[in-house]
């Protein structure tokens, strides 16, 4: 079984996207969700979506059609790393796509 890849997408600020990605990595580990979290800056990639199983984006960078995978907007996590509605959306999507 190949690794489940989660891409956290940000805009210009690499610090911000890294912090959110680290928080999510920690969260997934605690939940026993084995996945690879990596980051992508929309500002530097001329609009190409990264290859992944799930895109969590801090700004509306990609549509699901462009990404070829589910896309969830996670901007609320910037102010609240455990924003309940956003976390619920992420978990629901992972449960649907990936057997934990």
């Amino acid at each position, binding site marked *: 079984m190949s690794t489940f890849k989660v891409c956290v997408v940000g*805009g*210009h*600020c690499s*610090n*911000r996207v*890294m*912090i959110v990605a680290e928080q999510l990595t920690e969260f997934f580990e605690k939940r026993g969700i084995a996945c690879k979290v990596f980051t992508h800056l*929309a*500002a530097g990639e*001329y*609009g190409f979506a990264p290859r992944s199983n799930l895109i969590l984006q801090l*700004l*509306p*960078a990609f*549509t699901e059609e462009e990404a070829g995978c589910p896309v969830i*907007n996670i*901007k609320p996590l*910037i*102010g609240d790393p455990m924003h309940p509605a956003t976390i619920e959306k992420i978990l629901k999507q992972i449960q649907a796509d990936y057997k934990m």
Partner: protein
Amino acid sequence: MSRRIYLDYCATTPIHSSVRNAMLSVLDADFGNPSSLHWAGRYVREMMDQSRLDVANGIGCRPEEIVFTSGATEADNLALFGTLRLFPRNEAHLITSAIEHHAILHAAQHLEQDGYAVTYLPVDGRGLVNPEDVRKAIRPQTKLISVMSVNNEVGSIQPVAEIGRLAREHDIRFHTDAVQSVGLFDVHVDELSVDMLSLSAHKIYGPKGIGALYIRSGIELAPMVFGGPQEHSLRAGTENVPGIVGLGAAMNIVREHRAEERVRLMGLRQYLVNGLQALGPGVIVNGAEETSAPHVVSVSFTGMDAEMMQIRLNNDGIAVSLGSACNSKSIEPSHVLTAMHLPQEWIESTLRISMGMPTIKDELDTILDAVSRIMPRVKIQ
């Protein structure tokens, strides 16, 4: 990326060919130290004197009232620190506004940390300082008032002449950061009643790394840099001669063209504003038409992500500026838009489009087309 369109002239401007040519002659051959007493130094000194005269002519002062600096940031710092540090900490008060450039605000905050008193004046929804608020803020210890001429984020034209008169009535020094105004307005230090004025070359088609502070004759300042008699002993160190020559050439260009450019850009601004407003009710142009500089448009795309809009425009080759900066944990709201009491969601949805001498209507059509195409893609969900 096919075509590149630059609409960020408030950030910086390209070097004008005349400026480049003037600087090249200095870089190629005229290498002398202006402090030297021989032919090589004297020739360069004469070039520098001519530039000082050119800059002075651009703002209606005498050449000996110009001090060359590394840019407007240093000029602003010299005006503030140079004035306040003449006085004991508990005997000096500074009045400035909440929408100044960080060159002023950070210097003022530093002075506060040093024990000086500072008042930050509010602005109204148009981004304007009310002179009456200045009057009310004046204390017996007030030594300096510093209010910018034109705001760099929203383009609001401040009532500088009125504040200058007020300062003069109370025998208080008045400084203005004129970085965004000297390129387009007929700045005259006596008409504005300013005692000190900062300007920068790279905002007026000159090189980066050079600026100037006008200091009215008779005004004393505490020096910032020690080590030589250059620039009236206020700023020691061998002068940046190519930069100074470039600044003088740039000032000549804007002085010659600013009246016609002001009218031309006013027309372009109106065209752009009309085009933006036609994109929908959620597109809001900040500030007021009658008090806005002709080269700046601050626009909020409510319900849209400005950062993604800026990225997509950049991918299309169009350079504009974000209204707010981001940091690792939050979106740092613009201090200017915050002071104007704009709602947070507007502030985070704001772009700054700024125009200059090379801007043409065709470029505005291109950005309007691009924005209308991008808008549905950057809605905040």
